[in-house]
């Protein structure tokens, strides 16, 4: 179903809830946006956020359907309910945007992020890093006598918690992918 053909506001599952109850509390929402994979489409989406002063906590994008020329953009954003509704409606106006899904509203959804971290150290700190990695189900993907590179997958909070633990143990670099998310069930 194209986002532009959604009977807007008609169902709870619509991307556009035209009768929201507005509160002033900021909420965190995960949006999944299906777009035509054409040059500049990411710039249009990002330009919308910067031009209208919306927040981006994380953003991931990749082609998901080569024959259909579709890319999926996952954006984690924050704002009051009125702002979140406005973001979704504004995204829906972009011509090559086909679908806008608010996974936080339409959910429950599965969210995952991948991170790789370099931890440099020797002796007891090195052993402790390895022990914690085991608890967090992080994998060692590179090792020298004085360093590890860990790969960890999970919700952003889990990755943040692992990074916090690694910091006193010699964390020197971290790269995170941002959130990828899908609705649960069929």
């Amino acid at each position, binding site marked *: 179903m194209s986002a532009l053909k959604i009977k807007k506001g008609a169902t709870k599952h619509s991307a556009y809830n035209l009768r929201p109850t507005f509160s002033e509390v900021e909420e965190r929402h995960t949006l999944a946006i299906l777009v035509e994979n054409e040059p*500049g489409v990411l710039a249009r989406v990002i330009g919308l956020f910067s031009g209208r002063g919306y927040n981006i906590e994380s953003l991931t994008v990749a082609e998901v359907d080569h024959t259909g020329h579709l890319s999926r953009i996952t954006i984690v954003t924050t704002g009051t309910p009125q702002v979140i509704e406005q973001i979704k409606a504004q995204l*829906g106006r972009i011509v*090559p945007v086909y679908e806008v899904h608010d996974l936080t509203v339409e959910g429950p959804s599965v969210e995952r992020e991948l991170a790789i971290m370099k931890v440099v150290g020797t002796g007891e700190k090195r052993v402790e890093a390895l022990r914690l990695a085991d608890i967090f189900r992080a994998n060692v993907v590179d090792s020298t006598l004085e360093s590890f590179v860990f790969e960890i997958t999970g919700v952003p909070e889990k990755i943040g918690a692992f990074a916090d633990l690694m910091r006193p143990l010699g964390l020197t670099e971290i790269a995170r992918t941002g959130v990828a998310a899908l609705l649960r069930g069929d």
Partner: protein
Amino acid sequence: MKREMTGAGIVVQALKDQGVDVVFGYPGGAALPIYDEIFQQNDVRHILVRHEQGAIHAAEGYARSTGKIGVVLVTSGPGVTNTVTGLTDALLDSIPIVVLSAQVPTFLIGSDAFQEADTVGITRPCTKHNWLVKDTEKLASTLHEAFHVARSGRPGPVLVDIPKDVQFATGTYASAKPSASRYQPTVKGDMQEITELVAAMEKAKRPVFYTGGGVINSGPAASQLLRELVDATGFPVTSTLMGLGAYPASGKNWLGMLGMHGLYEANMAMHGCDLMINVGARFDDRITGLISAFSPKSTKAHIDIDPSSINKVIKADIPIVGDVGHVLEDILKVWKARGRKTNKEALGKWQSQISQWRKVECLAFTQGDKAIRPQHALARLQELTKDHDRYITTEVGQHQMWAAQHLGFEAPNRLMTSGGLGTMGYGFPSSIGVQMAHPDALVINVAGEASWLMNMQELGTVSQYNLPVKQFILNNERLGMVRQWQELLHGSRYSHSWSESLPDFVKLAEAFGIKGIICSDPADLDDALLEMINHDGPVVFDCLIEKHENCLPMIPSGKPHNQMMLNEDETAGAIQGAGGALV
């Protein structure tokens, strides 16, 4: 139809197939192949402007006065960057425009070539959509899609950037297929919401229609349906600047324009209503005033084709996404089927309340025998032109608001003015586009001298094509609206708000072979106006007016609708606190 032709040939063929009869443009190196094609045919007429900003405002005037798409052709680099103001203007006022811009050849893109600019990057935020075509095979379909996107849903400006090698190369031309586009916005409103609105209309004690540019953009049928609905229900109707003419100014339910410089009765009705029916307007800040005190006791229905307009500024109780024409038709159907009910007793009281507000006569003024007052100049213009087939364009500022207050618009597509962006310099080139579309009509640009000077180079275009546009310049030797705000907000310190070194407008017109008229005496005004109206050719009319007139009534920024300043005595200290930070 499918056949092989050059990219430049495809451009011209696509214009013909899209029914384009006139293009406003300016040539340059990268656009030469297209200009060569233009030269070799007679179906599409090219109007050579004197500056690309003039081209796009002319196209806007053409589009707004016809309901058709305005087309602009410019070269790469400075050619297209000069259209950015017009693109933004058309985006904010929802005007369908197609800009065709030439680009350096594909193999030079990214090399900082001569007259290269990142056109799609620069125009991305100020178009509804834009395209860079790198393959001649995709040119025809992209051009047809561009026209489709510009006119569908909420109209707006689009741009197609065409590199020079793509213009030279050969590709296949195919005609437009209407079903080919994935872009198909919702036009039918939700029947459940429409029924809820009709139920609210049946019970409403103090209803008001608040209409906007969406009625005009929807087409003449929408204006007709609005008139039918207003007259059948007897509900009062007000409009934004963009919507003037959708309901006739002579209609008995007409309240006049609302908003910052709107009429007292219109704003009081908005403030006091219990049912507000927004038809194709967007709760712009010129309309709402202080949002927290905006129409506090009303149920608000909002009809808009763009879902992002709904709940953006004002929360809608009855939101209806759809095309105004379609939705009004359904409202009428449902309302008639349910027995054409209104709350007649309460409506009678509401109408007598409105009559009381009308008695304030917020637009009243007295013309003395010295300087011409701008209100008088426009009242006389109205009186002497009202029976003509008349189109009005305006620049931006005090004169624009006086024109909206004192001229009566009886039909849609008759007022072309820069509403959202407030672009000084819009009116003159816009009048050129209007005259191109309506060669026999009386086209008048109501201008201020400062705005008018911003695109006065278009005198050359007017002269070349002998377009009989009338430039009616209300000359107060001031940036009047800036001066007014400095008086209200900045202790009457008139920083750079006067027009020094003004030209002799009569001589300036004559230098282009155009008739010039100057008038400063109220006693001479009617004769001078008639001379302008009856002259078979373009006229520049320098109307010297009272220099310190303020545009009233006014809702001071940061104030609600029921706290209007009606006369000069109320202007002292009118804007205070946070209101001073608003624009």
